[in-house]
């Protein structure tokens, strides 16, 4: 059970189903990383490989708190779990990620930058924070039409210092927008530690300065993330405006795979390794009798092979046709 949550609406059997789902998505996120890492080591990856190791509970727990029929996700570079929650087909994901023929981005971009409007996923751009005003505008449009769409988006402990984040948070608060911004504090921004990025105690302390709800939680506990986000979604849905949630985790690998993260003191990594969000949740789910150890093991194994197979299929596809480079700079209407 979540440690700090204030209430829970789900009944016991429903909770078991929820736990099973959350674990499944977290394992998908974890094994996606494993598959991409393998690709990187084989020298076959193209573009940066950004691991989300340590962030699975945040991306899965937060996305699970949404209603993927009406809400929207604006994920970042360590939120692959949310894509699964929102129903992304693994083959399509890989094709997009690896920018092969058939990619929704036609090869114009890769990694998790794509939008999949049918699945209510709106991707990212590299410029940190730039999509937060966009997410705000998206839900503002919904409000204008009387819709109840909530947007969930993310920013890092480093990216939170970008000016556009300030403008977007303030704007969302003034207009009481149904926007949830999660600050993923994974201790580092590339090589830069927290104390060189900001000087406040908790990044959620900024919420008060915008007049919005703010809280800081353990980002390795998927149920806590889920519960905190559920409440934020509820508030947003009720017209109570945006929330700022800081999730505290540790980035367990380099910024991207080319980075050996030698700048991270080893003892910090050791300390955090005991709080691995996937492993701890597996234990919890097994302990509660929701899944057995062997069920989990075979889930992990089958997920990994599914991922690898999807990568292999994607890699078999050619690069998109060169002509795509000349299309769609403008939408012809």
């Amino acid at each position, binding site marked *: 059970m979540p440690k700090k949550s204030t209430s829970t609406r789900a009944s016991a059997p429903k909770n078991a189903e929820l736990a099973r789902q959350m674990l499944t998505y977290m394992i998908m996120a974890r094994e996606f990383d494993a598959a991409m890492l393998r690709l990187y080591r084989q020298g076959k990856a193209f573009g940066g490989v950004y691991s989300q190791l340590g962030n699975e509970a945040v991306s899965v727990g937060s996305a699970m708190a949404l209603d993927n029929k009406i809400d929207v996700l604006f994920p970042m570079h360590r939120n692959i779990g949310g894509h699964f929650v929102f129903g992304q087909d693994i083959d399509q994901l890989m094709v997009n990620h690896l920018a092969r023929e058939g990619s929704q981005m036609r090869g114009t971009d890769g990694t998790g930058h794509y*939008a999949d409007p049918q699945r209510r996923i709106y991707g990212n751009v590299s410029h940190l924070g730039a999509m937060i*005003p966009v997410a705000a505008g998206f839900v503002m449009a919904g409000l204008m039409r009387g819709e109840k*769409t909530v947007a969930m988006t993310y920013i890092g402990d480093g990216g939170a210092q970008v000016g556009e984040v300030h403008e*977007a948070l303030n704007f969302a608060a003034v207009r009481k927008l149904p926007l949830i911004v999660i600050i993923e504090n994974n201790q580092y921004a590339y090589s830069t530690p927290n104390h060189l990025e900001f000087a406040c105690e908790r990044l959620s302390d900024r919420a008060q300065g915008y007049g919005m709800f703010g809280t800081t939680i353990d980002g390795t506990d998927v149920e806590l993330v889920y519960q905190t986000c559920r409440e934020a979604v509820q508030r947003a849905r009720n017209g109570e405006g945006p929330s700022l949630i800081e999730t505290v985790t540790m980035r367990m690998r380099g910024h991207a795979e080319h980075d050996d993260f030698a700048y991270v003191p080893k003892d910090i990594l050791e300390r955090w390794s005991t709080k691995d969000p996937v492993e701890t949740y597996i234990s919890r789910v097994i302990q509660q009798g929701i899944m057995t150890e062997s069920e989990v093991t075979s889930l992990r194994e089958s997920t990994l092979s599914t991922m690898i197979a999807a990568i292999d299929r994607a890699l078999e596809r050619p690069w998109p046709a060169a002509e795509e480079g000349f299309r769609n700079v403008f*939408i012809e209407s």
Partner: protein
Amino acid sequence: MATMTYLEAIADALRLEMRRDPTVFQIGEDIGTYGGAFKLTKGMIDEFGPTRIIDAPISEAAIIGSAIGAALNGMRPVAEMQFMDFVTNGFNQLVTVAGTTAYRWSMPVPIVVRGPSGGGVGANPFHSRNSEAWFAHATGLKVVCPAFPADAKGLMTASIRDNNPVVFFEHKGLYRKIKEDVPEGEYVVPLGVARVVRPGTSVSVIAYGSAVHMALEASEALLREGIDVEVVDIRTLVPFDEETVLESVRRTHRVVVAHEAVLTAGFGGEIAARIADKAFRWLDAPVRRVAAFDAPTPFAPTLEKAVLPNAETIVSAVRDVMAF
């Protein structure tokens, strides 16, 4: 037809499109109760209410960014920059997000970012910039610079209906300076079509925005010298109506390119370069440009007059190419 100022014509287009299409809304600083710094949106909040005429915080990135987001969710936002100079604070949203989304996501981003630009009115370096060339060089953004009330109305209508991000430069010096007959009701001037505003045979002056008026004034003076100037108003920088420009040059064999923005790396270079490439064999004289001196627009009238182009600088450039 109704006689309208340039400002009234733009307001008319905004009002008509808002009536016609419930997905159109406006956002900007002080555009509601106050009616905007230039009173262009005056009264609109009474007709359309604060949901569709949104007084935003002083946050140009949030204004443009939220417009982009709303556009992705089915709306057609029009965002006002109180002065176009302040678009530098929302620059990233325009060039990084708006200008690349169609290419990456094959999704329309039907936003218009509009506002007063240009100098010559004794503002200061921060209220006078002509920055259209930045956006023409950004990819994925349409760029519109009307010179006349009717065009301003028709191009604004087309911009709002366009499925792509449009940066719409209104010259503040023209807002109340010129009046003309403007078609009443729905009126569309398609983007990407230049207009010969004064046919002539001796030399072509290719211009846009305030420089069109300088060119027209210059052509009157030059006519007295027997020089019959053709003035082409390109109206939209992106898309660029190359054919109308080349066609004019092929007839006159001489050309001057004029704009109010500073010379270096201005859009005049683009126009001149296209002419020097594609109309080369028709040219009887060098391609000359008239533009502002490469400096911020100064405040004092003596300085401002000195650095900005005007009818006289166009006259002397035309004389030069005629004398060649």
